[in-house]
Each structure stands twice: as C-alpha cells, then as structure tokens.
C-alpha cells in the first residue's frame, strides 16, 4: 500500500516516509513538496525524463539532503551514517573503479561497509551467485558489459541486506533473459519481506513486478497507488475496450446494440479486422455487464475482451502528454 500526502502514519514503523520533501538544483526545483510512504513490497517509480525520479531516489538513499521536509527510513534519517544500514541503492550512474574486478569491487565494498573480513568471501560468493556473475567474477569492471555492471550495482545494493532497496533503472542494458532473471530476483526479495522502490522505462518488466506505482511529473507526485486508480482519478480520457467475437456477421449488430447505451461514447470497427469491435466508454464496469447481457441474449460468443490502455505505458503517455 502506498500512502499519499498528507502522511498520517508514524515514520518509524514504515520502510519509507517522506513528508513535504523539496529539493532545489540551483534555480531549478527538482522535487516539489513530495509526500509519500511505502509499505513492504515492490513499488514502481515512473515519470518522464527530468521528472525528478533520480533526485527522489538520491534523497531516499541519503546522497542528497532535502531543502525542505524530511525523509525517514524506519524512523532513521538516511543522510546519517546510521541510515545507510537501512537502504541499498543501485544508482543510474556508470562510474566504477575501472581497474578492479567484479570480485575485488564487492569484497572491498563489503570491507568498507564494516562486514567482518572472515565472512566477506562467502558473502560475496553468495551474492555473485544470486545476481548471476559468479562465472565472470574476475572480469575487470572496465571490460564488463553494461548489463554486467548493472548486476554488479545490484549486488552492491544487496550486500548489507538492507530492508529497503532503491533501484534506479536496473533493467537498462540488460538482455531479455537477464531481465527475466532480475524480475525473478526482485520478486524473491519481495517475498523475503523487503521493500523495493524501482524506477525504469522498461514498462513491460514493471508490469510484471507490481501494480503499485508512484508517478512523478515536473517534480511533483501526480499519482500514488494502483495504476487503475491513477487512471480513474486523473484522466478524463475514456477507456477503449477491444471485443473480439467469433462471428464476423454479428459484429455490426453488436455495434448497433451496444451503441444504444448512454454509457457508450462511441464504437469503432478497425479496418481489416472483421471480428473486432472497439467500444469507447468512461464506465467500463457497467459496459462489461451490458456486453455480457447482449452476448447471452443474442448468442454471440465473445472470444476476447480487453481494456486497451490500462497498462502503465498508456497511462503514462496519456498523463504526460496532457
């Protein structure tokens, strides 16, 4: 569950609690009065380029300090060194110690984090196995592909087993097989009780991970919650329902019948697709019931019924165009 401002919960019992957070970059307001709280699970952070996603993530990870407002992770300020125990951050940056190998990098980061030196080798092995880098551990970071470096960053983020993971564009540069593995990994981490905030432009993967989204636009939160709620709350744009029936001869009858209902704004027969009818409405649930009734009364079997623009991509596109 995601809370939307005003946040009412006490900060020390939620994984992430932001209240009225703003951040200036010189004269430019990067983040404007953002309030939200996250519960355990995966939450997607969506927004177009320059909407403030990375700024918010950097603030949550304690790499930036808010100009106004406050952020708490289980009641601890992430800017302080104590807060760094609680958050694992995989940033969007691609700068490494290029002369180190993947194994060296994780071992040294583990040492810097204060993990006991005896436990470091086994821990690093385990993490490399989890992210799928065990076989290439000795590769120098400057010779790694983008996907390998992405995995190294994620490995670094889960090194200290923090309760909150913040992943900025984790799928960037990873091949489809790798993305599938990463999705599985994140779902596994979610099931172990972690809270994960992930931002990405790979909306297919986001859809597989979660339906909970926080949408940013121009530094403000425009929506927080399920995608459908975002759509319902913010958009005047009607929903388009695609209906596929078995018999092409009955398509016109169906179109005429369904058009009589006041909730239906329009119908459309796509060119070259004789079996498909597109129905435009603001009340999809009511129209569904009408369609079922018409189908039963007139013996018109429905092969497929789909709401076309419920996906985050379409919602995003609509939101950010308007």
């Amino acid at each position, binding site marked *: 569950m995601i809370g939307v401002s005003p946040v009412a919960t006490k900060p020390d019992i939620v994984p992430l609690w932001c209240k009225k957070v703003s951040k200036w970059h010189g004269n430019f307001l990067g983040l404007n009065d953002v309030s939200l709280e996250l519960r355990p699970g995966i939450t997607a952070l969506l927004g177009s380029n320059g909407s403030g996603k990375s700024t918010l993530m950097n603030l949550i990870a304690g790499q930036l300090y808010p100009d106004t407002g406050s952020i708490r992770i289980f009641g601890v300020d992430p800017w302080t060194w104590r807060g*760094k125990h609680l958050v694992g951050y995989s940033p969007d940056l691609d700068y*490494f110690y290029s002369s180190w190998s993947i194994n060296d990098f994780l071992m040294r980061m583990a040492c*810097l*984090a204060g993990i006991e030196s005896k436990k470091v080798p086994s821990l690093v092995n385990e993490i490399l196995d989890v992210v799928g880098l065990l076989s290439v551990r000795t590769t120098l970071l400057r010779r790694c592909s983008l996907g390998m470096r992405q995995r190294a960053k994620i490995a670094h983020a889960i090194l200290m087993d923090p309760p909150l993971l913040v992943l900025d564009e984790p799928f960037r540069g990873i091949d489809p097989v790798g993305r599938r593995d990463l999705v599985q990994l994140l779902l596994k981490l979610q099931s172990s009780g972690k809270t994960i905030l992930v931002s990405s432009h790979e909306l297919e993967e986001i859809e597989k991970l979660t339906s909970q989204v926080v949408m940013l636009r121009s530094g403000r939160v425009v929506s927080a919650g399920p995608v459908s709620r975002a759509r319902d709350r913010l958009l005047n744009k009607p929903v388009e329902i695609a209906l596929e029936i078995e018999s092409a001869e009955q398509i016109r009858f169906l179109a005429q019948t369904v058009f009589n209902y006041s909730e239906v704004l329009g119908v459309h027969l796509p060119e070259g697709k004789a079996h498909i009818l597109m129905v435009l409405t603001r009340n999809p649930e009511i129209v569904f019931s009408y369609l079922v009734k018409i189908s039963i009364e007139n013996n018109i079997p429905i092969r497929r019924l789909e709401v076309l623009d419920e996906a985050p991509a379409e919602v995003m596109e609509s939101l950010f165009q308007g």
Partner: protein
Amino acid sequence: MILERGISLEFLKSFILGVKSTLAVHLFRAKVGHSLFWVSAGFLLLVAAVVVSVSFKNQWNYKTLKPRGQAGFNFKNSIEMIEAGSMALGHNAGVSAVCSAVSGASSGLLIESGFPVFTKNVVFSVLLGFLLPLWCLTFAVEGLGSEREGKTLFWLFSKPVPRSSIYVGKFLAILPWVIIWSLGGFFVLAVCAGDSGIFAFKLFWQPIALASITYASVFFFMGACLPRASLIALAYAFVVETLLGSMPGSLKQLSVAFYARCIMFQKSSDLGVVLEQGGGYGDFSQTMAICFMLGIALMFLVAGIFFFGKIELRGQR
C-alpha cells in the same frame, strides 16, 4: 547537514571501523602511474642529473664563489692572496703564523663547505620551493580528488560509516606515499650530492617529513572539497609556495616552506653554519615552527572533515 550531536560511543566505534576499513582498502592502492606522478619523477631525474653533474665536477663548495658585493676574486683567490702575503711576511714569524692559521682554517672551511652550498642551492630553493609541493600534490590531491573526478564518491558515501572516518582513513592511506616520495626524492638528491648531501639529509629529514605532512593535509583538503582541485593546488604551489615563499619581508610566512626553512636554519645554526642572512628564518624557534606546521595540518584536516561531510552528489550520470 545534520551533525553528530556529541560523540557517542556508537559513533566512536563506527568512526574507528570506518577509518580501519578505509585504510585497509585504500592503503598502498594509491593511483600510481598517472601523469602527475610521471612529471614528478621526471623532475626528480632532472634535478638529480644536475646534482650529479655538479658533484662530478666537485663543485659543492665555496672555492669558485665570490664574496658578496665583490667582483673579481673568488674565495679561493682570497685564500691564495693570504698565503702569498704570509710568505711575503716570512721574516715576521708571528704575523706569518697568524696568516697561515687563517688560510689553513679558511681552506678547511672551503673544503667542508659543500653542506651549506648544497643546502642553499638545492634544498632551500629547488626542493622546498618547487619540488616538495609538487611531489606532495601528486598523491595528496588524488586521494579524494580522483574519486570526485572519477565520480566514484558514491561508493564511499553509501557506506554505513561516518564520512569523517572516510576522510581520515583516506588521508592516512595517502600519507605514507607522500612521505615516502618526498623523503625518497630528497634522499636521491642527497646521495647524488655525495657526503654533503647525505649530511644534509641526516640533518633535515625531519623538517622535510613535517612539511610533507602539512602539504599533504592542505592538498588533500583541496582534492576532497574544491572543484578543479589539481588546478587550485598547482596555483597554490606556484603562487604561494614558490613565488611568495621567496619574497622578502613577511609575505613568505604565508608559505609552509618558510617554517620548514626556519627549522633547517635553526638546526644548521646549532652547528655554527648560517645558511642565509636576513630572510627572517631566525625569528622562529624550532618549536614554534613545528607547532605552526602541525597547526596548519590539523586546521586543514578539521576543515576537510567538516566540508567533506556536507558534499551532496549531484548530476553524476
């Protein structure tokens, strides 16, 4: 920035852990082989070659130098004149004996004068005024400066240890390199100069080491907290240390090299050798100069810890 309010036991433990872990990871992993290092090495070789050529010609003494304000005769000529005069006055035993004693003592002094000549011409001017700041800069600025320039500060800032411990740990990690490079370079020059140089090294290695630590603190601060740190450090090295440090009057007291020279001046004065007339080096005792240098080092260390803790990582794509 939220400062640590008071020093709790937990903070102390984390601080020590942070220093230890930073030291363990970064000690002896300084970035050697970058362009500044090779330029510093090139300078050392160049100066060493010059020192060797002077040593080869056995010129580390006052024989061919002229007394101040006098044209024509050099010191060797002067002694020869005294000897010639003593021979001319051979019938007066007392005067002749005095002249012989003076010329003998002066000749001995000339022969043993390699130490002040080497110190004045190499240690005071070239080493302290030019080479030492550059050698210290080579490693000290790269300590955290390379992390800033390479945008890898994030990997340090994401660790659950106080930033002050990271700063101190990194400083302690580069310090051995700075001291080894500075003293090593001084030793190379001293060996090239022969006995005079080795004597100078034995006498002056402490102020050189102390100056290196002070420079390391100053340049490390610049690398950690200032943008374009290498440029600013070079400007400091050339303007403050080289230029101001050689100016008459009290302007030179702005340079770290001045206090190192004060210690050297006092040490050589204790042996009866006055390295430089005027210059104000005798105005500071060794203790005062040491306190000044340690104070400067500590001041920049504390300032660095404070400002380093305020750094926010912006726009690191």
